[in-house]
């Protein structure tokens, strides 16, 4: 789960990816890679790279129609960020490890 949240943060940390994601959220229909490249004056390769990262984070889904690949937004994973479960889960794991180290050190002293 921690990996997913890290992917999510990495995906939205980049302003261009946030813009692409936003464009897909407000689009009335799925957009092709070509449409996105035109809108952002970017190469298809550049767009494909960003889309792949957004896709890995679960924020963009893809749909192949013939030779065209269409992308649409999936904002659902963003809700996960708000819950902070993964964050706290890791926090407590680390804290209990610290407690264990502390107890072991004390024992040796």
């Amino acid at each position, binding site marked *: 789960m921690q990996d997913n949240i890290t992917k999510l943060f990495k995906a939205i940390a980049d302003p261009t990816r946030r813009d692409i994601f936003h464009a897909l959220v407000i689009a009335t229909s799925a957009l092709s890679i070509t449409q996105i490249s035109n809108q952002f004056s970017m190469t298809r390769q550049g767009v494909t790279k960003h889309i792949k990262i957004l896709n890995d984070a679960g924020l963009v889904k893809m749909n192949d129609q013939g030779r065209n690949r269409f992308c649409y937004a999936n904002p659902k994973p963003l809700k996960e*960020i708000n819950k902070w479960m993964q964050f*706290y889960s890791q926090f407590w*794991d*680390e804290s209990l490890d*610290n*407690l264990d180290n*502390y*107890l072991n050190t004390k024992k040796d002293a």
Partner: protein
Amino acid sequence: MNKTITKEKVFNHPIEQIWNAITKAEEISTWFIQADFKAEVGFNYTFKSEPNEKGCTTISGTVKEANPYKLVYTWVVADTKVETTVTWKLETQGNSTKLILEHSGIENYTGETAIVMFESFNGGWDNCINGLTTFLKEVVNAR
């Protein structure tokens, strides 16, 4: 999704030793975070790390239950005003002690609170915890 985080860990230490580690201010301050804490019902505690250039997160709350071997306190991060609850339970298991930690109420963090939390933790907490770990390593190595 479950709204309570539960962690279980078995320690090869007597129950009393772990109880002291989680209830005595000077011990909490050593392994966890700088604490002004008393295991007395109604005590308003604060957890605060040594300040650094980025500042540190403050945790505050009230002790709700403190009977050996169960400790319950509320947990409020910085200025979020969102109350969550942390429960520590200890059980003897042969020569070991089982610790059960529950953190509930996390669903109360929503929207903007999450952003405040993230910024607060991002700037402070990680650094403080890392700082503490480094400090402990240095102290141990110096012996």
